[in-house]
């Protein structure tokens, strides 16, 4: 059965299914119950599953994570929402020192099937702390998995796969794409959650990206085609671990690679992709791997964010530079 839904609605449907499938699944976060979340991702779930399973918490991110860890120790499968990307740092210690390490610390006795949902990224004209891309911090931490959907179909499946995963998952939701719509076949079989996907085939250059930038990159690829450049777009979907094979297979075909993300490029996901591609595709590369992304500045006031965020032109400018070698 197929249904047209927004990315936010796809997450809502995925969470609903997770709650139906396993009584141990609990949702917790600020304003997720009666209000349904500030982005309405958890709309109506408290009404249907009760206040004990969809829990409005005190405003204390560190303890949203801390109690989720305790609940996981007790056998629950908490899905914790951090309301905005810039508020997750309050919980950073519980995530990095506890959530990520508990399974190893216990020699495998204690599983941590905790999903941490975080709306992330810019482009919505927000005030400070509401537009950040913190993925590299979490991808850098052993013990965590980092997933990010770019479209409603992946959102529907990835959130369910994150919930059933026995490892802790940082689940980054591209907030400026919450209202993008697509047809979701809810009876389909999803691809593995840790695999990337070629979302557009091309022959001249591989454009690697994820989350909110996938749509921008697809638009860039469509524009480039008119100019005679064939761009292959790879949606990483999983940032930790990376699906190295899908990326290197693509670069093996095209010989060129550009990586695009909103986060600062310095020590970002693109740096890791560039290193891996250089190592694995050294003899196929016609040009150095180039990166396009945010600058090493605090996220700017929103009237400047269109300069900070890579747009179609800046991506194509980088593609042109890769093609010029």
């Amino acid at each position, binding site marked *: 059965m197929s249904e047209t839904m927004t990315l936010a609605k796809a997450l809502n449907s995925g969470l609903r299914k997770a709650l139906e499938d396993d009584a141990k699944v*609990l949702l917790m976060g600020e304003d997720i119950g009666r209000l349904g979340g500030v982005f309405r991702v958890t709309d109506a779930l408290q009404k249907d599953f009760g206040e*004990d399973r969809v829990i409005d*918490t*005190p405003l*204390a991110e*560190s*303890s949203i*994570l*801390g*109690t*989720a*860890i*305790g*609940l*996981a*120790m*007790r*056998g*629950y499968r*908490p899905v914790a929402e951090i309301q905005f990307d810039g508020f997750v740092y309050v919980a950073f*210690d*519980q995530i990095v*020192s*506890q959530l990520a*390490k*508990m*399974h*190893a*610390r*216990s*020699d*495998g*006795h*204690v*599983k*941590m099937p905790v999903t941490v949902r975080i709306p992330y990224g810019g482009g919505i004209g927000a005030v400070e702390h509401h537009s950040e891309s913190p993925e590299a911090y979490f991808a850098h931490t*052993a*013990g965590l*998995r980092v997933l990010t959907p770019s479209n409603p179909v992946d959102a529907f499946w990835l959130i369910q796969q994150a919930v059933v*995963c*026995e*490892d802790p998952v940082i689940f980054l939701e591209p907030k400026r794409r919450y209202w993008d719509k697509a047809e979701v076949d809810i009876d389909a079989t999803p691809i593995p959650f*840790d695999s990337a996907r070629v979302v557009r085939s091309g022959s001249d250059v591989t454009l690697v990206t994820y989350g909110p930038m996938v749509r921008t990159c697809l638009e860039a690829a469509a524009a480039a085609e008119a100019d005679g450049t064939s761009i292959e777009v790879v949606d990483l979907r999983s940032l*930790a*671990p*990376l*699906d*190295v094979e899908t990326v290197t297979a693509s670069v093996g075909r095209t010989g060129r690679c550009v990586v695009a993300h909103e986060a600062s490029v310095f020590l970002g996901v693109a740096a890791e992709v560039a290193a891996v591609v250089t190592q694995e595709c050294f003899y196929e590369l016609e040009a150095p791997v180039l990166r396009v992304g945010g600058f090493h500045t605090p996220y700017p006031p929103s009237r400047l964010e269109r300069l900070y965020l890579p747009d179609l032109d800046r991506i194509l400018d980088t593609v042109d530079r890769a093609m010029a070698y």
Partner: protein
Amino acid sequence: MAIPSHPPDDSFVQLLTPEGERRENPDFPLDLDDDAVRSLYRDLVLVRRIDAEATALQRQGELGLWAQLLGQEAAQVGAGRALRSGDMAFPTYREHGVAWCRDVDPLTLLGLFRGTTNGGWDPEAHGFALYTIVIGDQCPQAVGYAMGMQHDGAEDAVMVFFGDGASSQGDVNEGFIWASVFNAPVVFFCQNNQWAISEPLERQTKIPLFQRAWGFGFPGIRVDGNDVLACLAVSRHMLERAREGSGPSLIEAFTYRMGAHTTSDDPTRYRLDSDVEAWRLRDPLERVRSFLHKQQLVDDAFFTELDEEAEVMAKRLRNGVRNLPDPQPADMFAHAYAEPNSLLTRQHAELDAYLAGFVPEEAR
């Protein structure tokens, strides 16, 4: 109108004086048979012996570090013996006495401080969570676990341990709030040992710690932390209260860290010998020993046999720690993730290939 000052209240619950005199407290009646008192004394002696042996093993280079509990035996044994099998304890890194009560092999603790493991026991099997080294992190976790018990409809409770230093941490205070608003079955057990490495209690609080509880909406009580009977009675009471659905409480066990913070610390740099000597007169073991003598609950053979038992245990620890197998390279990768992880698989293979490049010692 003058602003009223907080009522001063430094009293604590004491059921056994430092001289070994029994005191009754109508709020915390404790009816123990003779065997039970003897058993508590045995716990105290053996726990102190574990601590002494581990300290010696660190000095001999067998352990990288040891966090001493000397002086806090009564607080830990009293609390630990109040727990039932279905309860869960969340320790810091100094709760060796509680670990003892929860049947965690002291050798496992030594492995942690030797560097053969970062924990390794099964919390569910022991009702004893893993040691937490980051100060206060265990508090919200304990509350989450208690919320899970509540959700399960279990009639059990959680006891979470922390110190006076941790009482300043955000996570501890957040834990108080969550426990309060969710009415979670959790007992906060603060061992106020007066020192957070070199920082005295006065740097953490202006009021007695137990009084903070009322501001969070639940009762707090101070207990003589060197009195095993008082710690047991008050812990039992508060745990039962939590199991019955009456919510959280805070116990401040007023005690003293007789040793250093850890074997890396030098307390002579920041505190007076005279203070330590004053606390020595309130030793948690001596008062039980006096009580046992005065009540003629034991004969000399009891003490001789207990000393022998402690000696046998110490010997087992000495030999055991030296024979703890070092972890293997594969152990580093084994539990980093619960599910297969392509990055880890690749890195593990790279390390194996690198290690395979060495000529085995016996082949040289």
